């Protein structure tokens, strides 16, 4: 048999997908009306990070004109059960809050109405009576004994802890010449695809079946979980993906709880339901990469040879361990040596739940966090050992001769030439010149730094790696799991046209074009002759657990299934043609649209005719050839076995390689980081389409830059979510992307006939570590945390502890200090009043006075000793909201000091805080009143109006004291309304 000529594979073929996308002709989920009679859903989401739901009243919403139905947990849980998890912990996860809310954004109720506008109107009519509970967001605090408990039944926020030993880590550390440690806190961010989640759920009777159209990306192993929750068998949940998906990067995996929720809602309200997530919902309530804390230690010889590693990964999974979590911490697990030779590894993985949104797949899936730890460690060790950052890596990287290589954790590294990649990086960067530039810059007093990060890029995940979260015994009990099925079907219809079905649900990765290139080569056709269908319909497509689009699986697994199916079709075509042409099948080649005799090109017939004969003339086919052409391949790469008794597993199929080097210049005055040079060298095996590979490299780099420099899903210490808009959650735009020099090395993968490796995560995993290393080098400090925003870098560069806005700081001694939690609002000030302290004291405790000076107060009642309730309307410009407030006075030391504690809740949000007030007599018989306050604000105002909160709080406090002053000396303050500005113009905060 002759090798098919490779005409298309490897060529920079412009994408077939583009024409529809460029002309507005492509259809995404919100463009579809797949059934008649669609109604529109909106979700009421928790505004509290942690609260018991005392009561939900849906009646007003139900009565609202245009509303079809309103449901909450009581209705939904009558239909569905919890969604199963690989981690056995008493932390039942439902797609709607049951009894308690555990993160801001958790679904509480669903309204279905004639349109989205009306549905949102009705959301405002739902009354939820919350009993707020204290919350915890920090993974280290969450594991503590006195932390607020999320799941009472589990009795701890530590969902799971597992330890692993590979080789002899204790021996390695005992024998080490030097041990270095990197503390790693990694922030939470998300790839925020431009298209949000969307679905249409339709429940039909006879047979009872749910059909859901969506932009879900897989993995379709979650189909089984959805069916489990819906308590149905698989063929009663039909999932259909939209023809186009507006980006995913893993994030759209976590759409699945909403599929379950809306399927149930459709059944409950008796109508097909469309739900399109909005951006606010997406940022607060979809998914994200897990934030982590923890550390990594390395045992080194004095020559810089890494002999042992100890990882302690503290993973913040959010409020629930939502499947497929905890996979993110196991994705790199079997490759915990990275690209290095080290064989003694200890790993402790602790999963904690906190009052944050549950996490899931996100570009790099565990890679960015892993490399941040490992590559920071290498840099710290290099400095500690007095070695060049390149040299320490050179001494530890696996060598070309070692491949294929089985890592300590059981990964089958297929191929690689890491040192060649390192050298190529240095060459492209002109490393020596950069070092000279650094010397010059430093001599001139500038902050210049160089950082490297290198690692492997595993692709095509073994579905079984997540079972490492279970003990050997648990795994044995649950039954062995392994593999990653790739599925492809190729058919040729009676007109002779070729259709390929990949069930790969791309979101922009060009699967259709690449599949067409592969099939075109196999069948001697042109890509444009071939139609590729990449979406899934679970009732009509061939698919399996691993189907979907994640873990770079296309070029590592799916492509193999496509090639194998194409080979089968080619063999069949050749057999038929050989019969016609009266030669042996191995003498036939498929090229230029013909089946022809090798070496005798004029002896040929069109492929099309060969193919159509299988439909039109089955009787004329040679012996043993079945009619029609319809070849399905279902395969699983054979090395992907079950985890063994030593917790080793071949967790991926192909192992690409990425080496990043970056040189930066920091403006010490502003903290601005300017990238002077950025080089990224990739080994993706054989490139199937260089255009697409380049696109993935640049795209992954942009996510890496975003994560390193800008992006963070921010919560305050009370769990209030603060980055709810694209003005607060900062994605990089075109001017933020530095020039990227891309280099290549190429070691074809032996795992598939095309030699390709999965790719796409690439730089998203290494860029954050490389930039952090460069900044650490520039400022000479290892206290580097992400994102490297202007303020943070300036703080680091000046040896300050970076505190985010609103965090408490020691201030000038004027006022008493109030303790605020990080991310809260704080302030203080002083005001001179004309009345003596005793009189001021009395006024502050008098309900009538309070009613007249609390800003926006409509009513205020004394409800107990020193306790008041009030109705207030607070407005800043046109942003107005009504709140119920409670105020209590404590720690009274008449007439010198007191503490005022307050909280308020309303439609736009809620807040809690306290102030300390101190009264001192002045020489002129008046009072010098000094105050300090701290408050935390949650709900919508915090999520979308964070920029304004601090100032609004100040305005309100100022109004309060202005009111007090007016009570004391009415005429003096009857001035224009900018008065308080002068009053508080200086010295206060």
């Amino acid at each position: 048999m002759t090798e098919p000529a490779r005409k298309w594979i490897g060529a920079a073929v412009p994408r077939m997908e583009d024409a529809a996308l460029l002309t507005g002709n492509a259809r995404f989920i919100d463009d579809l009306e797949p059934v008649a009679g669609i109604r529109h859903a909106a979700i009421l989401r928790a505004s509290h990070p942690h609260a018991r739901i005392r009561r939900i009243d849906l009646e007003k919403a139900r009565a609202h004109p245009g509303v079809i139905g309103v449901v909450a947990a009581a209705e939904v849980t009558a239909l569905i059960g919890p969604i199963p998890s690989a981690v056995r912990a008493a932390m039942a996860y439902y797609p709607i809050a049951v009894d308690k809310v555990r993160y801001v954004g958790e679904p509480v109720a669903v309204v279905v109405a004639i349109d989205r506008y009306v549905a949102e109107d009705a959301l405002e009519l739902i009354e939820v009576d919350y009993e707020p509970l204290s919350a915890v967001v920090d993974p280290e605090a969450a594991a503590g004994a006195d932390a607020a408990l999320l799941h009472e039944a589990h009795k701890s926020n530590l969902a799971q802890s597992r330890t692993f030993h590979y080789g002899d880590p204790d021996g390695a550390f005992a024998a080490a010449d030097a041990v270095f440690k990197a503390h790693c806190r990694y922030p939470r961010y998300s790839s925020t695809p431009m298209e949000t989640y969307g679905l249409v759920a339709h429940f039909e009777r006879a047979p009872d079946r749910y059909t859901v159209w969506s932009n879900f990306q897989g993995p379709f192993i979650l189909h089984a979980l959805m069916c489990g929750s819906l308590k149905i068998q698989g063929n009663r949940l039909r999932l259909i993906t939209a023809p186009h998906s507006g980006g995913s990067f893993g994030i759209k995996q976590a759409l699945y709880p909403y599929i379950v929720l809306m399927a149930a809602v459709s059944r409950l309200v008796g109508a097909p339901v469309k739900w399109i997530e909005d951006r606010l919902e997406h940022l607060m309530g979809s998914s994200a990469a897990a934030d982590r804390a923890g550390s990594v230690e390395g045992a080194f010889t004095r020559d810089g040879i890494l002999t042992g590693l100890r990882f302690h990964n503290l993973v913040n999974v959010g409020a629930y361990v939502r499947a497929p979590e905890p996979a993110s911490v196991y994705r790199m697990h079997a490759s915990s040596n990275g690209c290095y030779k080290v064989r003694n590894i200890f790993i402790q993985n602790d999963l904690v739940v906190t009052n944050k949104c549950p996490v899931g797949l996100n570009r790099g899936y565990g890679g960015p966090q892993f490399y941040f730890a490992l590559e920071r460690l290498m840099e710290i060790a290099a400095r500690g050992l007095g070695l060049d950052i390149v040299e320490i890596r050179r001494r530890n990287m696996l060598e070309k001769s070692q491949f294929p290589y089985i890592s300590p954790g059981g990964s089958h590294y297929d191929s690689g030439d890491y040192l060649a990649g390192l050298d190529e990086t240095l060459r492209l960067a002109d490393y020596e010149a950069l070092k000279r530039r650094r010397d010059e810059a430093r001599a001139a007093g500038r902050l210049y730094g160089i950082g490297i990060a290198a690692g492997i890029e595993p692709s095509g995940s073994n579905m079984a790696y997540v079972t490492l979260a279970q003990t050997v015994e648990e795994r044995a009990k649950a039954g062995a799991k392994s593999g990653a099925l790739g599925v492809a079907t190729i058919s040729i219809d009676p007109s002779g046209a070729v259709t390929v079905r990949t069930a790969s649900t791309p979101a922009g990765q060009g699967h259709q074009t690449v599949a067409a290139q592969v099939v075109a080569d196999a069948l001697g056709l042109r890509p444009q002759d071939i139609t590729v269908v990449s979406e899934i319909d679970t009732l009509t497509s061939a698919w399996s657990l691993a189907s979907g689009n994640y873990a770079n699986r296309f070029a590592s697994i799916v492509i193999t299934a496509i090639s194998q199916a194409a080979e089968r079709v080619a063999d069949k075509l050749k057999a038929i043609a050989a019969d016609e042409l009266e030669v042996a099948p191995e003498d036939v080649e498929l090229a230029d649209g013909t089946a022809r005799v090798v070496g005798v090109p004029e002896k040929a017939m069109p492929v099309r005719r060969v193919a159509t004969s299988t439909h039109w003339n089955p009787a004329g086919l040679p012996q043993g050839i079945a009619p029609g052409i319809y070849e399905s391949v279902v395969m699983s790469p054979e090395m992907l076995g079950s985890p063994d008794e030593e917790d080793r597993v071949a967790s991926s199929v192909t192992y690409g390689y990425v080496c990043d080097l970056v040189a930066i210049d920091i403006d010490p005055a502003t903290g601005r980081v300017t990238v002077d040079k950025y080089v990224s060298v990739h080994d993706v095996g054989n490139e199937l389409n260089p255009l697409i590979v380049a696109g993935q490299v640049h795209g992954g780099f942009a996510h890496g830059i975003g994560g390193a420099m800008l992006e963070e899903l921010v919560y305050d210490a009370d769990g209030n979510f603060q980055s709810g808009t694209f003005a607060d959650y900062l994605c990089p735009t075109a001017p933020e992307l530095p020039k990227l020099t891309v280099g290549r090395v190429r070691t074809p993968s032996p795992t598939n006939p095309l030699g390709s490796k999965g790719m796409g995560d690439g730089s998203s995993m290494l860029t954050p570590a490389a930039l952090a290393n460069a900044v650490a080098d520039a400022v000479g400090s290892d206290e580097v945390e992400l994102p490297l925003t202007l303020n943070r870098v300036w703080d680091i560069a000046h040896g300050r502890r970076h505190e985010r806005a609103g965090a408490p700081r020691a201030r000038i001694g004027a006022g008493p200090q109030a303790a605020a939690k990080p991310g809260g609002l704080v302030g203080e000030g002083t005001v001179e009043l004309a009345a003596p302290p005793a009189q001021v004291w009395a006024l502050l405790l008098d309900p009538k006075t309070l009613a007249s000076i609390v800003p926006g107060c409509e009513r205020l009642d004394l409800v107990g000793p020193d306790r008041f309730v009030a109705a207030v309307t607070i407005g800043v410009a046109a942003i107005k909201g009504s709140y119920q407030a409670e105020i209590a006075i404590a720690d009274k030391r008449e007439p010198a000091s007191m503490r005022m504690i307050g909280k308020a809740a309303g439609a736009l949000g809620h807040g809690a805080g306290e102030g300390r007030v101190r009264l001192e007599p002045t020489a002129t018989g008046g009072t010098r009143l000094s105050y300090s306050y701290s408050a935390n604000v949650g709900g919508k105002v915090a999520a979308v109006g964070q920029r304004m909160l601090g100032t609004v709080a100040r305005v309100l406090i100022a109004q309060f004291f202005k009111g007090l002053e007016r009570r004391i000396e009415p005429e003096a303050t009857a001035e224009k309304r900018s008065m308080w500005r002068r009053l508080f113009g200086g010295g206060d905060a």
Partner: protein
Amino acid sequence: MIRVKPDERVRVSLVVNGRWLFGHAEPRMLLSDFLRHELKLFGTHVGCEHGVCGACTVEIDGRATRSCLRYAVQCDGATIRTVEGLAVGDTLTPLQAAFNRHHALQCGFCTAGILMSTTAFLAENPKPTEAEVRDMLSGHICRCTGYEQIVSAIMDVAHGGG
């Protein structure tokens, strides 16, 4: 003075891609929703509905602007161009063709907005510098491409062969 009550649906007529079209809208209906769900022009996409991402950018009366920050009632009588109005028949505009050649789109969700901005921008500034192009693009978020190929496609169209 024209006054419309909150729950009143009024007829909004406008020229879209060279045709007089009309639909109905309450005052609060976003132009982006009107284009998509009333006029069924789904080529315009919505990524944030608060004016930051640029996905919804269309040309209104000759200017590229956010359609999520406009209400349909405001646009009665307006002339609008959307991504559906760029190509003539099967012929892509040079900009669209360059996007294809340079692989300037992946998922394509941001693309319509970027094409509309860039089309208007190049009409005003046919030979921009790369910095000017990046400045113009800063009003868009693309999560897939890293912008590199978008910039090269635009520079190619503007300067040829670039």
